[in-house]
């Protein structure tokens, strides 16, 4: 089963390998499960439809993930659920976590306490909307037959690679050789590869260790459905066992509403008041021009041919943020070489690499004109990766030795919040930033390996 690299792509769900960009129509359907046996029947009906990471050029793709409540709903014992990370077990909408992530649950339309419980997420991707709806109908039928009910449905259509504010998105995903496309492997990016274990459970992570995950006694896997951890191979599970986590990943789903009109208006008004060009101010906030070209590479105007030029450092090329402000969105989301220890060094890059996420989101525009992003991130350690990026980099007013700066696009605003644009001789400060992005829903889910999904649907524990 193991390939040349040891990565079991045929046991991983396809989202780990690609965002299914050739399938523009997508539906993220969430269900609340009924009684345990019915829930498992639902899983077993759809398990066979799941697209693996080794499949190529499929017309329709299906991915399945479960929340902690979903795992409990299918009857998985508490002791097993307890083997997952605490963040996952408590869920994204736990009170302390919302405060930490800067979420206002009062604005949520799904996933909040008191709303329909999100137990199972089925992501369906298709070439045409007919194919999509045919596939989703089959999933719906399986859910209903198993006693499940609709919790929330997110439909998306991607016809252009830009996000709703109009900027090219998805440029700097971490480079993981085992998961890369043939084209990427042939022409690898300049960035250091990030170990597979940072995104897929059961493999060596950036510390050379196996990330925490549920490894069960063989006695609860009598049919030997799960991969085996031999004794003495995993420091966290010295006795070995049956690996429920292997080839799985933690999936973060968040609906981010984007006020595109408000963003354009603010940029226009502030530009005329400050004498900056409106496009330049918008680019300063994002850190890239609309084409995707980085301000570090192209500080004065958009140069679309530089959209793919991604080989730069912030500290090395722009230590004071005169090109790309320290607080710009993309500089926060991936600070590259700009943080301690010794900014500009390989050591600094290595520390940043401990906090990477794989993004698989899709933008949406609803009938009422609401636009935004169904943000999807994959990672193996929610606390060190997704939550760290959200709290310590994006939302932190003290990021990069700043004082009261927020991420001008997504950060939660406070009374003193500003956005600082370094310049010579004097910086500009922009205050009174409206909320351009509001989180409207979210969930932490487990995207199991295919054998693990089979195991969960069998219920032989």
């Amino acid at each position: 089963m193991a390939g040349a690299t040891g990565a079991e792509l045929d046991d991983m769900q396809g989202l780990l390998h690609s965002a299914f960009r050739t399938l523009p129509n997508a539906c993220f359907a969430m269900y609340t499960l009924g009684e345990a046996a019915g829930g498992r029947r639902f899983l077993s009906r759809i398990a066979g439809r799941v697209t693996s990471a080794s499949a190529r050029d499929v017309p329709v793709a299906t991915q399945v993930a479960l929340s902690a409540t979903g795992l409990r709903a299918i009857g998985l014992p508490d002791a097993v659920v307890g083997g997952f990370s605490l963040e996952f077990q408590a869920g994204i909408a736990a009170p302390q976590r919302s405060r930490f992530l800067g979420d206002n649950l009062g604005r949520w339309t799904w996933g909040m306490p008191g709303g329909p419980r999100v137990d199972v997420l089925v992501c369906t991707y298709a070439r045409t909307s007919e194919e999509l709806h045919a596939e989703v109908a089959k999933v719906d039928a399986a859910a209903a037959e198993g006693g499940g009910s609709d919790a929330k449905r997110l439909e998306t259509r991607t016809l252009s690679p830009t996000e709703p504010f109009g900027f090219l998105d998805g440029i700097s995903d971490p480079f993981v050789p085992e998961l890369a496309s043939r084209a990427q492997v042939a022409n690898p990016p300049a960035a250091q590869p990030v170990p597979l274990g940072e995104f897929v459970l059961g493999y060596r992570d950036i510390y050379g260790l196996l990330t925490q995950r549920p490894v069960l006694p063989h006695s609860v896997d009598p049919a030997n459905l799960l991969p085996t951890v031999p004794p003495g191979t995993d420091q966290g599970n010295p006795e070995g066992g049956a690996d429920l986590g292997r080839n799985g990943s933690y999936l973060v789903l968040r609906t981010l509403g984007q006020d595109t009109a408000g963003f354009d208006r603010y940029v226009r008004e502030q530009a005329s008041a400050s004498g900056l060009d409106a496009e330049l101010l918008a680019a300063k906030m994002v850190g890239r021009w609309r084409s995707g070209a980085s301000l570090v590479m192209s500080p004065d105007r958009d140069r679309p041919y530089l959209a793919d030029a991604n080989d730069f450092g912030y500290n090395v090329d722009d230590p004071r943020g005169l090109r790309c402000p320290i607080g710009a969105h993309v500089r926060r989301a991936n600070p590259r070489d700009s943080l301690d220890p010794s900014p500009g060094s390989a050591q600094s890059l290595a520390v940043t690499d401990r906090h990477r996420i794989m993004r698989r989101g899709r933008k949406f525009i609803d009938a009422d004109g609401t636009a935004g992003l169904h943000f999807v991130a994959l990672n193996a350690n929610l606390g060190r990766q997704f939550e760290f990026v959200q709290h310590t980099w994006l939302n932190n007013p003290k990021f990069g030795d700043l004082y009261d700066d927020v991420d001008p696009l997504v950060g939660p605003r406070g009374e003193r919040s500003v956005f600082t644009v370094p310049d010579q001789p004097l910086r500009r400060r922009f205050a009174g930033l409206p909320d351009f992005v509001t989180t409207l829903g979210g969930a932490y889910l487990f995207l199991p390996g295919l054998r693990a999904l089979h195991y969960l649907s069998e219920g032989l524990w």
Partner: protein
Amino acid sequence: MLVQSAVTIRASVPARSVSAVEVALADTQHDVLARTTPLAAIGGLHFARLLMVPGDPDVESRAIPDSIMYLADVDESPNRHLRALSEQAGRVLDEVFSYCEDYPAAPDPAQRYTWLCAHEIVSTTNYVNTIGRGVEQIVQEAALHDWLEDYLDTHRPELSTLTPAEVHRTVRLVVESTPQMSFAIHPAPTMPVAYRVLALLQVAIVLAVLVVASPVVLVVGIPWMLALHYLEKTDWFWTQRPDAASVDRLRSQEDQFSYNPFAAVGVIKSGWLRGRTVAIVLRAIAFSVRHVLNKGSLAGVTMIHFARWVQVDDQRRVVFCSFYDGSLESYMDDFIDKLWWGLNLVFSNGVGYPRTDWLLFGGARNEQEFKDYLRCHQLGTAMSYAAYPTLTTSNIINNAEVRAGLAANLSDARASQWLARL
């Protein structure tokens, strides 16, 4: 001259009163959040905290009772701070410590002071981000920074046509003529030459003693390390995961300000060798943080304001407390990435710490085991007070640099660098 000192008070409390103490502690924290705490009036106080340290029914077959600890980082001598506390924060002391059996029934400041002195513990290993930088200076320089930012915002149109050196000169003139900011024209006080000479002398003496005694150090050190290594290999290790409810309780006290309080308690492994190792390591750390790592960085970790290790209960346990910037996750990551060896030196002598190799290696590098260990041994800090709760260590250092650059005559290039700090 000013050298910060660390004040530690510890008093045991009967088990039946623990829940009442917790209510009282929550009350004192409420005062901090409502900005009505009397601690705010005490001069020279950087940080203070009150916490419950649970006892242990059986460490080497002797029971340790529950206790309350008060820890403060101050600009004056511990005695002066305790006196100020007795006089100005009697309400806080009475509310919390009245549950201790020997606390005076109707205390006056003198009785409180006597009681505090009787319960003071001397902590020998105290880290200070920057020795000699007092509260008054930090608060003044923060006001200067904010004032300058506002000035630049309102005068940007006329200033932006000037050269950097001209902007700097203009700003300096304005500061000079603004009474509440004119302090900044004079450089901040530095440690007197005598202090620095004395400190250097101490370093020289210790180095000289080490060199002279190196044969002895080797003769003792090698078998010592071999014996420790044997213990590392044979000690019983087990993985302990924190339970969700207690982590949730701890998290509810975290991330309220830009700094966080951290506290943990650990039992030192039994036996003479472990006890002596801890004592020696703590002394070595005390020496290096006083004389070497005293300028804004604890071996690469820059986000710590104050930290201390206190040996308690007849050297059977160690309490570690710190005030740091950012989230616990980022603090732990900093430990794992930059200061793993330093943590291993101390904590590997504690029960339950991930297995180390030769005292320095392994240990904290086992990311998940280390994070679980810290969460399992962490104590909630029921009350924490900071004189400057919105300033990070990097803000404080930047503010000091802004003031330092103000007084000088700067070239265009230097003035441009100075302006980049604003």
